């Protein structure tokens, strides 16, 4: 039976995800240090940070793949169980940074696997094939086809997942995650490797998911995508949360720029040269021509 958990849209503001003081250590390395993050229903929250900042590790802590060394994660008020399949059953679904579809299953079967937690038919039911089995199977298929239509893959239901083009594999992964009827969807770099059009399509898709009443937490490197999409953005640098706020706040924050580009500091060896170049440019009035040659000499 389909116990439709998605339709019960909570009023915006209810906390869906509440991570408190999450710390993850691997031996001596602290990958994530004391991160607090909340996601409210109806919200799209972005998580950005330079490479190696601990974003995916934090994600894995949220989904039960890792058990945080310290701190706790609550989903709708309940502490998450430490097994990833139980987390999914509780209502958090995710996609992976490097696509992890079931490559040799068809598109439809992939989505059906996603419905595993929302169906109950076991081995005996499959062997005996009572009326309940057929009913549940039909419902599952119907629901899966709806989701494929939602992401625009209904025509390819019988294709093998491995033969889909890259962008559609991403969409299928999202459809598969949605099949578990989550209250919170975690997207790990959903637009990695996509061209601008595909990125825009993904943006629309995420908005559509939000409109279904599912909160979204998204990791991404594409800043335009993040700032278009997210109600709030948190910046993770070296395992710690640096800033959190709306797009404008984060974009304007010097520390964020510094974290991505590095900060200029006093008496650095390159400073004089930079000053020289700037002076020369100012004099010549042709800002760009001289500079490359100079840099190449260095």
């Amino acid at each position, binding site marked *: 039976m389909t116990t439709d958990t998605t339709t019960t849209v909570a009023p915006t503001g209810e906390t869906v995800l509440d991570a408190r003081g999450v710390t993850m250590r691997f031996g001596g390395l602290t990958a994530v240090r004391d991160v607090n993050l909340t996601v409210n229903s109806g919200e799209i929250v972005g998580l950005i940070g330079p490479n190696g900042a601990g974003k995916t590790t934090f994600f894995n802590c949220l989904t039960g793949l890792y058990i945080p060394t310290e701190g706790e994660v609550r989903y709708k008020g309940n502490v998450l169980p430490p097994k990833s*399949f139980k987390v999914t059953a509780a209502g958090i679904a995710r996609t992976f940074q490097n696509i992890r579809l079931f490559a*040799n*299953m068809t598109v439809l079967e992939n989505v059906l696997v996603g419905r595993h*937690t929302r169906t109950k038919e076991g081995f005996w039911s499959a062997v005996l094939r009572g009326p309940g089995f057929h009913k549940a199977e039909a419902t599952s298929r119907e629901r899966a086809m709806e989701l494929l239509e939602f992401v625009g893959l209904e025509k390819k239901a019988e294709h093998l997942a491995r033969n889909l083009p890259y962008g559609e594999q991403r969409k299928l992964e999202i459809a598969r995650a949605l099949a578990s009827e989550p209250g919170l969807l975690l997207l790990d770099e959903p637009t990695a490797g996509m061209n601008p059009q595909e990125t825009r399509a993904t943006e629309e898709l995420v908005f559509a998911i939000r409109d279904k009443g599912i909160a979204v937490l998204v990791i991404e490197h594409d800043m335009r995508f993040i700032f278009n999409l997210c109600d709030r953005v948190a910046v993770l640098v070296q395992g710690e949360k640096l800033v959190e706020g709306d797009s404008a706040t984060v974009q304007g924050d010097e520390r964020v720029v510094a974290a991505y580009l590095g900060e200029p500091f006093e008496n650095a060896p390159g400073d004089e040269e930079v000053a020289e170049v700037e002076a020369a440019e100012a004099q010549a009035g042709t800002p760009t021509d001289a500079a490359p040659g100079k840099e190449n000499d260095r």
Partner: protein
Amino acid sequence: MTTQTTTPEAFGDTTPARAGLIGIPENAARALATGGAILTIISTFLAWTWTADFPGDLTVYGYPGGLQVLVLIGGLLTTLFSLASYSVKGFGWLVPAGADGAIKFAALATFATAWYTVIAISVNLGGVVNLEPGGYVVAVASLATLLGALALPFEHPEPDPIDPDDTSWEHTKHKLGHQWQTVKAAFATGTARPAPALPSYAEILIIVAVLALALAVFTYGIGTEYDELFIGFLITAGLGFAALNKSGLVAQASQITARHQNITICGAFVAAALFPFTQTDDQYATLGVYILIFATVALGLNIVVGLAGLLDLGYVAFLGVGAYAAAMVSGSPSSPFDVHFPFWAAALVGCAASLVFGVLIGAPTLRLRGDYLAIVTLGFGEIFRITANNLDGTSGPDITNGSNGISSIPNLDILGFDFGAVHNILGVDIGRFANYFFLMLIITAIVVLVFRRSGDSRIGRAWVAIREDETAALAMGINGFRVKLIAFAVGASLAGLAGTVQAHVTYTVTPEQYLFAGAIPPNSAFLLAAVVLGGMGTIGGPLIGASLLFLIPNKLQFLGDYQLFAFGLALILLMRFRPEGMIPNRRRQLEFHEEAEAPTVLTKAGA
């Protein structure tokens, strides 16, 4: 940069786009093939040798015997395909994918069988003087057929451009590669046109015909009385099947069977049940029942390996547990328990014992992945055998009677039907082994049912998902450990069920029947080989793989000590050239996917 256009230098200019492998004009080649094939048919009615010393009695005029029949079949196939290639009315349906590839394979089948026979006669009897004129005629005729067939034109592949800077070794390699491509192209064929939409009674009739053909081939193979005939049978059957495949008939037949899956499966069981009625004595029913036991256990293993991707190298232990459990409650005098359960109870006991054993082994080991699981299951398989060997009263409690095993297991008696006695059904004597054959067929049907239904359900999809990517499957909410344990337990109980019958068929249950590897088939290595050779994740695959793996060592006694060597060689060759197994999984047959497909599933689950 050296961009030189030196492509035609080596061979390009001499070879026109369409030509045969041998330079005979097309019309002459086709005529030669057809004529040769007809002459071959005629020659099978002649005497090939003067003495009946060569098995099969090839001395009679007007009555083909033994290997002659096989050559006759090959010749008939070639003639039919040739006639079809002339667009003779009424033969067109034979070659939905084009005739030439089929002619080539059929001619090759005829030639190989005929020449094998002629050479075998000469070698066995000591010289070509032992050939009668008929022998020479068939040799020449089949050679002519083959030459004609090979001269049939085909599209030559374009050679890859050569880099003139390469060493001569690389040139040679390149040339060889191109020649191999050309030979492959010579035997290639088009795609079959889809099977015409027939009324369903006609389609069912076709299915019946296909099943009857399969039964006939199987019965012939199992009934071959001497090595030469079995080898000839393998040659003809293998290449003949290739010819049918190239003609596109196989593709059409599988389309039709796919439309009526349930009918096909029921029909296959009816065909299998007819097998004892084709036999005059119990000798080959014995082979039949052993093949069926082997195949059923292989099919059970296919749930574990093919669906869930758990490499189990100790699977035969579950067969052993079932057999021991059934033997102990069978009322055998050497059993420590003085009880005699009816079969249904014994089967339940065997099943339950294997289930418990499976869960006990599975619970700790299934936390491991891949190779580690394989090693641990291998260990547990051996532990079972050694334990059974030692529970003899001296090294441990007397339960299994040690290496002597439990012997004198009485025959089954279900509802007054004595399995040990000969029954006369429809005028045919059905002996002891045939009785067990029927019982085993029911068990096989149960296993097929479980395999099919569980495979196509929530739990089956979870198994495949676990095999494909365990981390992603966990993230999709699948309780990996639980699902894997179910697969392990189901596989174990099905093997145990087969074991309960096996105990009665063999009279005796000893630890040495349940080795990891040995020359006699139901052992873990052969079971796994049957699954991998036949095709993982399919029903037909393990059944055919098991039949071949059982029949070949059984029929080719002369291989003797080289059996395992030949087996290893065959395994390597098959894995090199057809890694997906003889019957590839449905997943690899989906449209759009012919090219880039092959071995992905295999390397993941089978390595």
